[in-house]
């Protein structure tokens, strides 16, 4: 047993013609200790820094804006008439490296038209305990339904609260938008929606 172990261990190559003094070296100029005066200058640096403006941001009271393209909480966008952009394709969920997104698609029916075209996202969950904010889901989304906001205050007290449902993620209804479900804009196809031809809701879309 011992023999077998020995034969399989890496043996260092030993050569007798190596002498440590034969290793070539060239003298490198080390900077060495600075002059006494130069060392005293360090004290001046710390002293004068005391009177400089501090970099600290008093965070909860003062909030500095994030970088313009900061990866914050996600948002599910709407078309200008209020229909959801999400078509329930699950590409975001497939793209997610952390498996943080769960999507269940469903068919749009004439009396339950949530998004233009055939399908919409019925269940849409993002687990912010898993999300790494890499933005691959945004890149994967074919309809620009999923984008990221600059919101970063996502701490909470329970795990359940950190799984955001569709309601939490959907963008607000802006002026000219009607809350879905409602029919598509008269005379427009899903391609028109995709191309941005729909600018606002049509009065006929409103369900009375």
């Amino acid at each position, binding site marked *: *047993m011992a023999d*077998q*172990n020995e034969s*399989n261990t*890496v*043996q*260092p*190559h*030993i*050569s007798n*013609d*190596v002498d440590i*003094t*034969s*290793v*070539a*070296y*060239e*003298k490198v100029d080390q900077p060495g200790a600075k002059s006494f005066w130069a060392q005293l200058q*360090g*004290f001046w*640096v*710390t*002293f004068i*820094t*005391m*009177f*400089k*403006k*501090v*970099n*600290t941001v*008093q965070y909860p009271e003062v909030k500095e804006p994030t970088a313009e393209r900061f990866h914050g909480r996600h948002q599910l966008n709407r078309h200008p008439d209020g229909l959801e952009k999400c078509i329930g394709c699950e590409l975001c969920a497939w793209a997610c490296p952390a498996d943080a997104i769960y999507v269940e698609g469903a068919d749009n029916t004439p009396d339950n038209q949530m998004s233009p075209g055939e399908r919409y996202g019925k269940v849409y969950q993002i687990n912010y305990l898993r999300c790494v904010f890499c933005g691959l889901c945004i890149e994967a989304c074919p309809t620009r339904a999923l984008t990221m906001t600059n919101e970063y205050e996502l701490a909470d007290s329970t795990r359940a609260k950190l799984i955001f449902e569709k309601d939490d993620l959907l963008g607000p209804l802006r002026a000219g938008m009607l809350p879905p479900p409602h029919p598509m804009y008269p005379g427009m196809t899903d391609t028109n929606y995709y191309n941005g031809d729909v600018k606002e809701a049509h009065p006929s879309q409103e369900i009375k």
Partner: protein
Amino acid sequence: MKNAQLLLDDPGWIITLKAVIVFAVCVVLTIMSVWGERRIVARMQMRVGPNRVGKFGLIQALADGVKLALKEDLIPAAADKVVFVIAPIISATTAFMAFAVMPLTGPVTFFGEKTVMQLTDIPVGVLYVLATASVGVYGIVLAGWSSGSTYPLLGGLRSSAQVISYEIAMGLSLVSVFIYSGSMSTSSIVQAQQETWWYGLVLFPSFVIYAISMVGETNRAPFDLAEAEGELVGGFHTEYSSLKFALFFLAEYVNIIAVSALATTLFLGGYHAFPGLGFTEQWLGGWFTLIWFFIKVLFFFFVFVWLRGTLPRLRYDQFMQFGWKVLIPVSLLWILVVATLRVISTTSQSRPVTFGFAGVVVLIVLGISTAFESSKKKRDSVVHPVAAEPNFAVPSLPSEITTINVSNQGGDRG
């Protein structure tokens, strides 16, 4: 011995009250200086520092103290329990004891009794301070040893070596003060400085040596090798928690204030006002001297913080080298010079002889430093020969290995 006479007729209740006051001053100063240090260091690093707890974060240190006291008090299984408990007590008590001989004010009226704010004035007051500081090291060494753990032991050893080395330099730097003032009593030294100049100016080299060694003595940055966070986790107090840790913390800061107070007393004229501002000493019935004293102590404290904010920690060998090869020889030579000057000035009383001797000393120092510099230059200019191309030892390539058998039998992992 004016102060001693004033102290002699103090009734017992005043002495007790003074002891309480000295204790309270130390604790309050510690709390405030922890806050102050954190604020000042923060500003030096372009931060704000603690500013949440209370106005300007003033009671941050108090809150930290309460937090420490409420934490779980842990004694490791491997610790020597008795020594483990005693060690922080030794550290803290000795730190407070040093303050007993510090003259905080000149003559004042205290509850109708004419006295000075000084607990006791013993003829060997300064030696007493040195002694308490030395005993204080026991706290650190025993803490390191009794923890039954590697890092604390290393920290304790470093600390003992460090304090012993720097205490020699410190003691030697004080010798010239004793020679000049002719006394070892703190109040007499203050009086003696009032009659001449501050010893910080007269005995400038002593002052510098003392200032350096007091940083080494208190284990403060850049000499904080005993509790080097980067190397030894927390050094000697790694295993300590709760109130015992708080005691070490307290001891460290009280020590800083004590050595600062000693520096003030011995070199910066003690409680007396700055030259030219002597008239202020009569204000508030002499209590104004207390303000002068604390201004000077806080100046030293600021320097401590400043050092921490500026300098990186020394390497252990460089630190020891500096202590033994620079500070101690220099202070020995300086004592020699001071003693000679003192003898000349007290016996012959002729100015030319004194100045002549001083001039010769200066010339010798200049000569030695010039010779040292030129020898350094000569040493640096030596050209090292470049050897021939070597035949390097190379490890065998992994491609030669067909299988790697990782045996889980035997070996030291058992």
